């Protein structure tokens, strides 16, 4: 068991709790920066997809994992970001970094415009509203031909960083990595300050959050804005990754994949976004490989990928509601406190009398 001797409050506020964290995260950082020199080009491309998914996952995690508002329409915000970014770059000729941030703002503006009326709803009703909004946006993508290219879609050029074209997968890999690191740091900063605590408070008990002076509606709209901003940025990067944007790229399936990502990774943890992103990005590749190995009667079933995704989601919700990161925490705690681990620590507790619980 590790005992940390604390001598200042700042120690608890820092990004990394102790020297061990500095070491391991430092090692991880070196590994991801060195990776393109070692691994094959194909996997470099796949890794940048993981990064893009992770960024979108952080966006959705802030909303669903930390504020407790489910969204089934986040693919549409990826779409808004992708189209807006492409429009800014190709039609208006805005330099890449500014266009990406502006795409984030456009996505956030759309998100907030939706959130203002929609956040009167909670739970499943909000999820349905987001789903409906995604369908509306899908129609907009299909019919606003002058911006989106309609059903046919529009090609997206390789990113160009102030006249320096990012021609290879490796360049794009580093670009996504840098954006991911910035987004992660920003999200971490929000989560360790007042706004983040307010979001988590709303998730756990709206009534007492309100009594602690938290403006529920404003905080929810802030969460929605932040979430859609980050998702919009991911959308801009995804456009470059796909090199082509068309409405079907941002369908309900992608929304569900995003949700699956954060549930499988672990709701309420930033680590979860990364684990989930790896699974969502690599599972289709893995299944494609398995098709050759499995007997044709199983490997050739149409819709195998969707089925496997669904099965994983169901199994996680049933068996490990806290996702991969939750499982990791349990294993870590088991060894840290060995042999004093109590299984009840992570049990979902039956609440005490909630007769007067108000929502």
């Amino acid at each position, binding site marked *: 068991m590790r005992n940390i001797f604390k001598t200042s*409050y*700042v120690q*608890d*506020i820092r990004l990394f709790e102790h020297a061990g964290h500095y070491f391991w995260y430092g090692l991880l950082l070196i590994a991801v920066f060195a990776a393109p020199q070692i691994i094959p080009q194909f996997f470099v491309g796949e890794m940048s997809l993981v990064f893009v998914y992770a960024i979108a996952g952080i966006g959705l995690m802030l909303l669903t994992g930390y504020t407790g508002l489910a969204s089934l329409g986040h693919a549409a915000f990826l779409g808004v970001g992708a189209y807006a970014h492409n429009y800014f770059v190709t039609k208006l000729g805005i330099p890449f970094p500014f266009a990406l941030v502006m795409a984030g703002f456009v996505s956030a503006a759309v998100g907030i415009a939706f959130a203002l009326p929609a956040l009167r709803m909670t739970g499943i009703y909000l999820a349905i509203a987001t789903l409906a909004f995604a369908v509306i946006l899908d129609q907009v993508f299909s019919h606003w031909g002058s911006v989106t290219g309609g059903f046919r879609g529009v090609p997206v050029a390789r990113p160009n960083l102030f006249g320096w074209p990012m021609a290879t997968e490796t360049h794009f890999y580093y670009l996504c990595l840098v954006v991911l690191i910035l987004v992660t740091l*920003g999200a971490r*900063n*929000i989560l*360790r*300050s*007042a*706004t*983040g*605590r*307010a979001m*988590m*408070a709303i*998730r*756990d*008990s709206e*009534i*007492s*959050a*309100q*009594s*602690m*002076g*938290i*403006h*529920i509606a404003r905080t929810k709209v*802030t969460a929605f804005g932040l979430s859609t901003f980050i998702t919009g940025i991911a959308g801009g990067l995804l456009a470059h990754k796909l090199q082509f944007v068309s409405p079907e790229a941002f369908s309900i399936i992608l929304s569900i994949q995003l949700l699956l990502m954060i549930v499988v990774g672990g709701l*309420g943890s930033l680590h979860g976004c990364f684990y989930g992103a790896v699974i969502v990005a690599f599972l289709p590749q893995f299944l494609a490989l398995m098709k050759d190995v499995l007997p044709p009667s199983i490997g050739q079933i149409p819709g195998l990928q969707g089925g496997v995704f669904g099965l994983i989601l169901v199994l996680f919700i049933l068996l490990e509601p806290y996702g991969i990161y939750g499982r990791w925490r349990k294993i870590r705690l088991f060894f840290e406190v060995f042999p004093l681990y109590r299984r*009840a*620590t992570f049990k979902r*507790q039956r609440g*005490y*009398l*909630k*007769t*007067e*619980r*108000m929502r």
Partner: protein
Amino acid sequence: MTAPSGIANAALLEAKKLTIQFGGLRAVDEVSFDVKPGEVYTIVGPNGAGKTTVFNLISRIYDVSDGHIVFQGRDITDVPPHRIARMGIARTFQNIELFEHSTVLQNLLVGRHCRNRTNLLSEIFFTPGVLRAEVEHRDKVERIIDFLELQHYREQIIANLPYGVRKVVELARALSTEPTLLLLDEPASGLNIEETDDLANWIDDIKSDLKITVLMIEHDMRLVSRVSDRVLAMNQGRVLAEGTAAEVQRHPDVVRAYLGS
């Protein structure tokens, strides 16, 4: 709707003919009382008397149908609920409303929210100003932790804590908001005798050391008689009697409400 400030009687909180109607039911019916600065004022009454509803009216969770609430000479009948904490009214809940998946420390830091001055942009970049604010919040929270002897539980997740400790954490969270008036909704319910004794001492300390006025709902008459300066008895949304604990307990209407006539 500014009510004349209560300089004459110098009440901290005044309820003036407070009424709330749920459909045909008048849960609180023209209830008037005033809480003076520095006292412990207790509301007692049988189940369904409307005590918690009075609290929900004061913390603005419910909208008042009729009547006024005046706090520090200001009419707060139309103040939005999230402003109440910053004005200096903190509360606990009858059935513990803590943030169960967070640690004790995080719960108490949420209590600091109403005193927070940082904005979102500076939080995203975690500027030195935000860091200073965080350290300051932590310092204030640590004082409360010391006061209520919660040091052992600081890093524990609420879901792992026993009921009695959760009650204290909820009290601590309310105190973290730096209130002038503390609303305690059945603070001793579910506590054993030792825990109730601790609570009585803390309420005394909150009154004498922290100079916080306490408005409390409680059934445990031993605790009520020990800490309260004045007691108000309610039944079926109406005031039955007001006075010292002993006076109220002897009052014929109160006896009738509890025992039947």
